[in-house]
C-alpha cells in the first residue's frame, strides 16, 4: 500500500483496477540516407495513412464527445496539410539526407518548441497537438502500432505518463473510470478530458507509471489530489464512505444549483466564489455561485516569469467579468509580500513580513505596477459588474490614497478615449483589526467591505496558524472576532454591502452566525456553495439573529461553537 499526492484535475473518487498505458519509445534512424525519393514516398504514405486514421478518430470523437472535441482532429489534419510542415520535412530529406522518420522528428520538435515557449495557454495546448500529430506520422512511417484502449473488458483507471487527444479519443469511455498521470496540469488535455467525461483525475504524480502495475487495485481521489495504490481494508472502507458522501453532494448540488440563497422568512443573501484564475469560473458556475467575491489576482503575477502586461491582465479580468453578466466580480488588487514573493520583483528580507511591506503598501511603493493593474481592471469593467477591492487597508488615509491613484488612471483612460465603467464599485478588504474597529469611518469612502477572516484572526489574536505550537489559538469563533465582525456588518447605508471572503464564509458551522450578524455576501471555494445554500434556505433570519445575539454574549469560542451545534440540531440541520 502507498499513497501519492498530485494535482487535482477533475473531482470525484473512483476505486478500480489500474491499467498502465505505456507509450512506445521511438528510435529514429539517424544515419544519412542515399535514396531520398524512397524516403519521400515513405513520408507521403504515412501522411495518407495519418489522414485516414484522423478521419476515423474525428468521427468517433464527434459522436462520443461532441463537435468541439472533433475539431481537435480537424486541426491535426490541418497540420498534416501544412506547407511549412510538409515542405520542411521534404527539405530535410532532400537537402540534408535525413531518413523520413528523422526529418519528421526534427521538424515536429522545431514547431513544438516555438509554440511551447509562448506564454499563452492556447498556444501551449497547440504545442501538444503538434507533438501528437508528429508522433502519429512517425509511428506510421515506422509501422508502430500503439496499444489499443478502444475495447476494454474491465473497468479501469488509466495510468500514463501523459495523455494526448489521440489517446483519449480512441478510449472505451464506458470502461475508463479515472486518470492518474506522471505529468500534466489543470489546463492540460488530460485534465480537460477528465472533466468533460466527469471522471476523477489526479495528475503530476511524477513516477506513477513506474510504481503501479496493471491490475493493482487503486483509488483516485480527485477531491484531495491523492491516489492510493493497493489500499488496506480500512482505507478502502473510508474511501467508499467518501465516495458516497460525494455522490450525495452531487445530488444536493443538482437540487440546489439554480435556487436563490434565501431564508425561510425571505432574507436573500449572495453566495459567490473565490477564484485564483479565470479557469476557476467554471466551478463557481457549476456550484450555483452568482458571482466572484474574491478574485486573487496575485496568481496572474506568480504564474508568470515577467510582470504581466496590461493587455494580459485585461484579457483575464474581462473573461471573468463576461462569465457573470448579472453578478458581481470582486477583483482584489495585488496582494504580494508576506509569504508571497515574485521572481521578477526583488524585495528585501524583513524581520516581520506580515507586518511589513505587503499588499496595498507595496503597491504604493511600486505605483507603476499598481497603475498597470488598475488600468487593466478599469478597461475590463465595461464587460460586467467589476468591483475593485484594496487589501491590507488599516485606515481611511490609505483608502483615499488608493482612490487618488485610481482617479489618475481614469483620467489617463479619458485622455486615451478608452472606455471604462465610471461607476465602478470600490471597496476594501477588512483584515486588519484597526479597519474593523474604524469600519464606520472607512465606509464613508467605499461601496463595500469584504471581511478576510484568515488575516483578521491572525492579526487580532496575534497567532500564526502555521506554527503548530500556537495554532490552537487560531479560532474564528473567538468572541473578539465575532464582535469585530458585528462591528463591520453594523456599518450599513444605502447602496452598500458587507461580505466575507475568508474561509469562515464557507464553514457550515459559521453560516447561521454570519447570517444572524447581518452578513450579505458569502464568498467561498466553489465546492462549499451548495452546503451553505442549503443551510441558509433551512433557517429563519429572525432565528439566526437571535442565535448570533446570544453568541455575542458568550465567553469562549468553545462555548459559542457548542451553542451553534446545539442550535443547528434543534433546527434539524445535519452537517
Amino acid at each position, binding site marked *: 500500500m502507498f499513497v501519492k499526492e498530485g494535482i487535482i484535475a477533475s473531482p470525484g473518487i473512483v476505486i478500480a483496477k489500474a491499467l498502465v498505458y505505456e507509450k512506445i519509445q521511438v528510435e529514429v534512424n539517424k544515419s544519412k540516407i542515399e535514396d531520398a525519393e524512397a524516403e519521400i514516398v515513405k513520408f507521403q504514405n504515412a501522411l495518407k495513412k495519418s489522414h485516414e486514421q484522423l478521419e476515423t478518430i474525428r468521427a468517433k470523437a464527434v459522436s462520443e464527445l461532441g463537435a468541439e472535441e472533433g475539431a481537435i482532429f480537424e*486541426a491535426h489534419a*490541418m*497540420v498534416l496539410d*501544412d*506547407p*511549412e*510542415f510538409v515542405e520542411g520535412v521534404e527539405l530535410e530529406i532532400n537537402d540534408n539526407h535525413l531518413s523520413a522518420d528523422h526529418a519528421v522528428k526534427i521538424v515536429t520538435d522545431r*514547431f513544438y518548441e*516555438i*509554440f511551447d515557449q*509562448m506564454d*499563452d495557454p*492556447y*498556444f501551449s495546448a*497547440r504545442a501538444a497537438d*503538434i507533438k501528437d500529430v508528429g508522433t502519429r506520422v512517425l509511428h506510421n512511417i515506422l509501422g508502430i502500432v500503439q496499444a489499443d484502449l478502444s475495447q476494454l473488458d474491465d473497468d479501469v483507471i488509466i495510468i500514463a505518463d501523459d495523455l494526448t487527444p489521440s489517446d483519449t479519443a480512441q478510449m472505451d469511455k464506458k470502461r475508463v473510470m479515472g486518470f492518474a498521470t506522471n505529468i500534466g496540469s489543470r489546463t492540460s488535455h488530460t485534465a480537460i478530458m477528465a472533466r468533460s467525461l466527469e471522471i476523477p483525475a489526479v495528475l503530476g504524480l511524477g513516477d506513477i507509471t513506474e510504481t503501479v502495475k496493471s491490475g493493482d487495485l487503486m483509488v483516485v481521489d480527485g477531491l484531495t489530489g491523492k491516489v492510493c495504490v493497493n489500499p488496506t481494508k480500512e482505507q478502502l472502507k473510508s474511501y467508499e464512505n467518501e465516495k458516497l458522501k460525494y455522490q450525495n453532494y452531487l445530488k444536493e448540488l443538482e437540487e440546489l444549483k439554480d435556487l436563490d440563497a434565501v431564508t425561510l422568512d425571505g432574507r436573500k443573501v449572495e453566495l459567490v466564489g473565490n477564484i485564483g484564475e479565470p479557469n476557476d469560473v467554471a466551478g463557481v458556475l457549476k456550484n450555483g455561485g452568482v458571482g466572484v467575491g474574491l478574485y486573487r489576482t496575485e496568481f496572474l503575477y506568480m504564474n508568470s516569469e515577467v510582470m504581466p502586461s496590461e493587455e494580459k491582465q485585461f484579457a483575464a479580468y474581462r473573461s471573468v467579468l463576461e462569465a457573470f453578466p448579472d453578478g458581481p466580480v470582486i477583483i482584489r488588487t495585488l496582494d504580494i509580500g508576506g509569504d508571497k514573493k515574485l521572481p521578477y520583483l526583488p524585495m528585501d528580507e524583513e524581520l516581520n513580513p506580515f507586518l511589513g511591506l505587503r499588499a496595498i503598501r507595496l503597491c504604493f511603493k511600486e505605483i507603476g505596477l499598481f497603475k498597470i493593474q488598475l488600468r487593466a481592471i478599469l478597461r475590463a469593467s465595461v464587460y460586467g459588474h467589476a468591483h475593485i477591492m484594496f487589501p491590507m487597508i488599516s485606515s481611511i488615509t490609505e483608502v483615499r490614497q488608493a482612490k487618488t491613484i485610481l482617479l489618475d488612471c481614469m483620467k489617463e483612460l479619458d485622455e486615451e478615449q478608452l472606455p471604462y465603467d465610471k461607476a465602478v464599485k470600490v471597496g476594501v478588504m477588512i483584515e486588519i483589526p484597526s479597519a474593523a474597529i474604524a469600519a464606520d469611518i472607512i465606509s464613508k469612502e467605499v461601496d463595500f467591505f469584504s471581511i478576510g477572516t484568515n488575516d483578521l484572526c491572525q492579526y487580532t489574536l496575534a497567532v500564526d496558524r502555521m506554527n503548530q505550537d500556537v495554532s490552537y489559538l487560531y479560532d474564528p469563533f473567538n468572541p473578539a472576532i465575532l464582535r469585530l465582525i458585528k462591528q463591520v456588518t453594523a456599518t450599513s447605508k444605502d447602496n452598500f454591502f458587507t461580505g466575507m471572503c475568508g474561509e469562515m464564509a464557507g464553514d457550515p458551522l459559521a453560516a447561521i452566525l454570519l447570517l444572524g450578524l447581518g452578513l450579505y455576501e458569502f464568498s467561498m471555494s466553489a465546492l462549499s456553495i451548495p452546503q451553505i445554500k442549503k443551510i441558509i434556505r433551512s433557517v429563519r433570519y429572525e432565528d439566526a439573529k437571535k442565535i448570533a445575539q446570544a453568541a455575542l454574549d458568550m465567553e469562549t469560542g468553545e462555548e459559542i461553537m457548542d451553542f451553534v451545534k446545539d442550535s443547528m440540531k434543534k433546527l434539524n440541520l445535519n452537517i
Partner: protein
Amino acid sequence: MVKKEVTVLNATGLHARPASMFVQTAGKFKSKIFVIKEGNSINAKSIMGIMAGGISQGTTVEIQAEGDDEAEAVDALVQLINDKFGE
C-alpha cells in the same frame, strides 16, 4: 504580384479561430500567398506559420500574392481582416 497593407483589428489577432479562417481562405486560391510582418515572410497557407507569427491586435502586415488569382486572393484576405473575422 499584388500586395496590400492591412492592420489587424480584431481583439485576439491572428489567433485560434481567426488564424484557421485565414489559412483556410488562403488555401482556396492557387497563388502563392505570403504575409509580411516586420520583414519576415510567412506562408499564408501554413496554420503553424501564421499562429507562430504572433500577429496580434494592432499589428500592420502586408499581404502579397503571386499567381493566376493574385488580386482576388489579396482582396479576400484583406476583407477578412477588415471584417474582424466576423467578430
